[in-house]
């Protein structure tokens, strides 16, 4: 055996041994990891290939050589497939490997080329050489096909590795990727030369030794695994990665302040390139925010650490970046100070937000302070905040009102009612948010306000924010008051002056009747009786008209009103007026509503009087008061089974002096329902009626829309 052959055989055997070691190493690192297993499979291809080639070169005859080359083809015919799988896994394309079709296609492809060799379609002959055997390809075509096969797959691997390198964030990842590019590239060139191109050109000087060249690649993988922890994740690796990629700037310095290393964020913050910081002094790039000097570093060296200090990073371009700085000395194994680790958090955005917030706060504060309406917040019945206008409106000094009980500021007539409503609103009840309210000033005077409530969160629990407008002195209100005064004067005048002539007509008619009775016939007396009846009816009309106008003007005092009790009382009074009538009153229990008691009584009186009146012609009657739900709100109703009305005239019911029955049939002035309507409207509700001739009528009304 000559030396060349010995070297050749030994190198292939060594390659085989290294591959076996690498397989053990990779599987030992993590026997269950898919990437480790695929890597081991790839290495197994190389090992089989290497071992078979040992025997191939040692073969005594061409026939024996053919047998070992066919054995080797198990490796060289199939290796590009597991190699591609490995690269796919490594570059994070593991989804593809979960696709069975893709895996099966790879296996088939590898088997196809092994089979081609075994069928005698690839390498067909051998030439005896001093180092063993050189190979002879079946022809250009099979050679090109095989070359395309492995070149394409390995090319894909290189492409994947380049892509990984481009996207890699840490230096470790980049180094790994580069190793994975260089390995196959070198192998591809050398292996193609030795195993394809030289044999094709019938140059037999160099043995087909691709599997040895592949050692470079495999060695690279081994190095990557050893040096950079490829295919394993260790805390130290993670820490290095985190330090490199973290958002905060990290600087390591020696005890004398000379910077040893800086992470990417530090370089970015200071506007430096890699390495530019090394050797510079910490106190020349980071200074105390207030003094602009190295005060904080003196403090650091005295105390051993500082944390959350406001500092300025002096960037390369001369600008200063505000940071929050923490630093500490680190000690070596012997416990001696070894260096300084510094973490700086960029505060630029934080400062900007803080400034924006402060500006916004100033803006809203000014808005609230100068608002023309009172604004306040109360919680658990106590006023916690009041703007100057609210304090002024309630007659307090600007700060004097905070801490006062809300209940004491509400007019006694409305206090319980409003407080109950406020509690229900905070509990999530759909209570009205805006309404008129009489408040009490510090000196006890009443102030008419329009108040709007909103439930908000304040100091972590529900509170009510109020906006209060003084409507007592608004222009419109003054005008209304003036108009009311004029109307009062007018009413007074009407009541006095319009009635006086009626008194004369009635009085002198009576005098005429009394004094000239004996000189008048029955017809004459009848005429005078009619004159008197007409004047008395007109007096009633005047009275009712005045009543109607009073309803519109009367001050309202809100409280919870028991409508059921009121209806029962009125029913009792009606029964007393005509005890002989057979009328059954049915009054629903528990109907209460917020409103003005005397006005609501007027509504019920009018409605129940009506029912009483229009059932008078029926021998038996039933009058009902109750509540139904209408659009989610209570609608109160009075139902009777009396004369009813034609729905065609329903619109006329509530017009003053409009009557659907003539006075001879049912007496009345036609003002009762108009009065009821005005009262209901003043309570923010509406009134409507349903009826049918001789079947009865129902009058509904709601309060507070």
């Amino acid at each position, binding site marked *: 055996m000559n030396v060349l052959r010995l070297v050749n055989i030994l190198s292939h055997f060594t390659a085989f041994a290294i591959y076996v070691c690498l397989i053990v190493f990779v599987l030992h690192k993590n026997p269950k990891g898919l990437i480790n297993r695929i890597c081991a499979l790839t290495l197994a291809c190389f090992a089989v290939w290497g071992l078979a080639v040992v025997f191939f070169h040692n073969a005594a005859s061409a026939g024996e050589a053919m047998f070992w080359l066919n054995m080797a083809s198990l490796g060289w015919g199939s290796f590009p497939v597991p190699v591609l799988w490995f690269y796919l896994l490594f570059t994070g394309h593991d989804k593809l490997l979960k696709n069975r079709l893709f895996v099966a296609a790879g296996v088939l492809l590898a088997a196809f080329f092994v089979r081609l060799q075994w069928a005698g379609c690839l390498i067909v002959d051998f030439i005896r050489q001093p180092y063993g055997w050189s190979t002879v390809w079946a022809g250009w075509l099979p050679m090109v096909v095989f070359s395309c096969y492995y070149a394409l797959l390995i090319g894909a691997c290189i492409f994947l590795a380049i892509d990984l390198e481009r996207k890699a964030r840490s230096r470790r990842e980049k180094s790994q990727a580069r190793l994975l590019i260089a390995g196959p590239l070198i192998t591809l060139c050398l292996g193609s030369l030795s195993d394809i191109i030289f044999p094709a050109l019938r140059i037999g000087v160099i043995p087909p030794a691709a599997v040895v060249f592949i050692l470079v690649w495999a060695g690279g993988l081994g190095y990557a695994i050893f040096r950079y922890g490829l295919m394993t994740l260790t805390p130290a690796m993670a820490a290095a990665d985190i330090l490199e990629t973290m958002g905060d700037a990290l600087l390591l310095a020696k005890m004398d302040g000379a910077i040893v290393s800086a992470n990417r964020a530090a370089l970015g913050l200071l506007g430096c390139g890699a390495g530019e910081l090394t050797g510079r002094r910490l106190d020349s790039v980071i200074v105390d925010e207030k003094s602009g000097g190295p005060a904080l570093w003196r403090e650091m060296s005295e105390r051993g650490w500082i944390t959350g200090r406001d500092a300025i990073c002096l960037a390369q371009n001369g600008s200063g970046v505000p940071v929050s700085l923490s630093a500490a000395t680190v000690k070596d194994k012997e416990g001696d100070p070894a260096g300084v680790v510094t973490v700086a958090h960029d505060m630029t955005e934080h400062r900007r937000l803080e400034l924006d917030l402060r500006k916004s706060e100033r803006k809203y504060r000014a808005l609230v302070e100068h608002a023309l309406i009172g604004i306040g917040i109360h919680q658990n019945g106590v006023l916690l905040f009041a703007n100057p206008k609210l304090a002024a409106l309630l007659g307090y000094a600007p700060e004097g009102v905070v801490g006062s009980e809300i209940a004491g500021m509400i007019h006694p007539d409305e206090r319980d009612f409003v407080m109950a409503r406020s509690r229900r609103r905070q509990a999530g009840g759909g209570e009205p948010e805006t309404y008129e309210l009489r408040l009490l000033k510090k000196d006890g005077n009443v102030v008419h306000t329009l108040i709007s409530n909103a439930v908000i969160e304040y100091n972590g629990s529900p509170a009510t924010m109020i906006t209060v407008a003084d409507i007592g002195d608004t222009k419109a209100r003054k005008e209304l008051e003036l108009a009311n005064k004029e109307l*009062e004067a007018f*009413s*007074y005048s009407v*009541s*006095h*002056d319009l*009635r*006086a*002539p*009626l*008194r*004369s007509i*009635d*009085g*002198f*008619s*009576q*005098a005429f009747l009394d004094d000239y009775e004996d000189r008048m016939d029955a017809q004459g007396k009848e005429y005078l009786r009619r004159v*008197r009846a007409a*004047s*008395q009816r007109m*007096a009633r009309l005047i*009275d009712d008209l*005045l009543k109607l106008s009073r309803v519109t003007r009367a001050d309202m005092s809100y409280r919870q009103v028991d409508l059921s009790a009121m209806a029962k009382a009125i029913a009792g009074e009606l029964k007393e007026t005509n005890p002989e009538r057979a009328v059954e009153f049915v009054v629903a229990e528990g109907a209460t509503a917020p409103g003005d008691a005397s006005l609501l009584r007027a509504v019920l009186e009018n409605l129940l009087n009506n029912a009483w009146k229009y059932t008078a012609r029926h021998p038996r009657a039933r009058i009902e008061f109750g509540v139904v739900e209408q659009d989610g709100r209570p609608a109160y109703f009075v139902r009777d089974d009396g004369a009813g009305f034609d729905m065609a005239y329903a619109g006329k019911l509530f017009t003053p002096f409009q009557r659907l029955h003539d006075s001879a049939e049912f007496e009345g002035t036609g003002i009762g329902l108009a009065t009821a309507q005005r009262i209901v409207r003043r309570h923010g509700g509406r009134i409507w009626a349903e009826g049918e001739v001789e079947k009865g009528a129902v009058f509904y009304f709601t309060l507070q829309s």
Partner: protein
Amino acid sequence: MDKRIIMLVEDNPDDVDLTLRALKKGNILNEIVIARDGAEALDYLFGAGAHAGRDLGVMPAVILLDLKLPKIEGLEVLRRLRADARTRLLPVVVLTSSREEQDLLNGYASSANSYIRKPVDFSRFVEAVRQLGMYWLLLNELPPLQRTA
């Protein structure tokens, strides 16, 4: 017939006639002094103007006072009567036309001794005046001033 006179302060001649008639119908036959406006009423009561030198020892047993009067209106007349020691205790019955006027009167409730609303129905007016006259002229004790006079 005693000296108990009734004073009627009323500007509407129809109302004067009807009131006189109502009093007559109620069999109240006392002497009746009529004033057509507030000023005239005060002149009579304080012995001024056309009534200067009148014997102020003679005062009406009751004054029927309308509220809406020319020159000086009813409430002002009432206020002045109550402000003067000589007339402070004179019984005054206010004649009103409406509830509006009664509301007005509420502010002076303590100063008027009583009020009646002039109903349009004459027969009811007669009845009201009759009861009123009976009360003030027959049942009510006269104020001390008259008794000593």
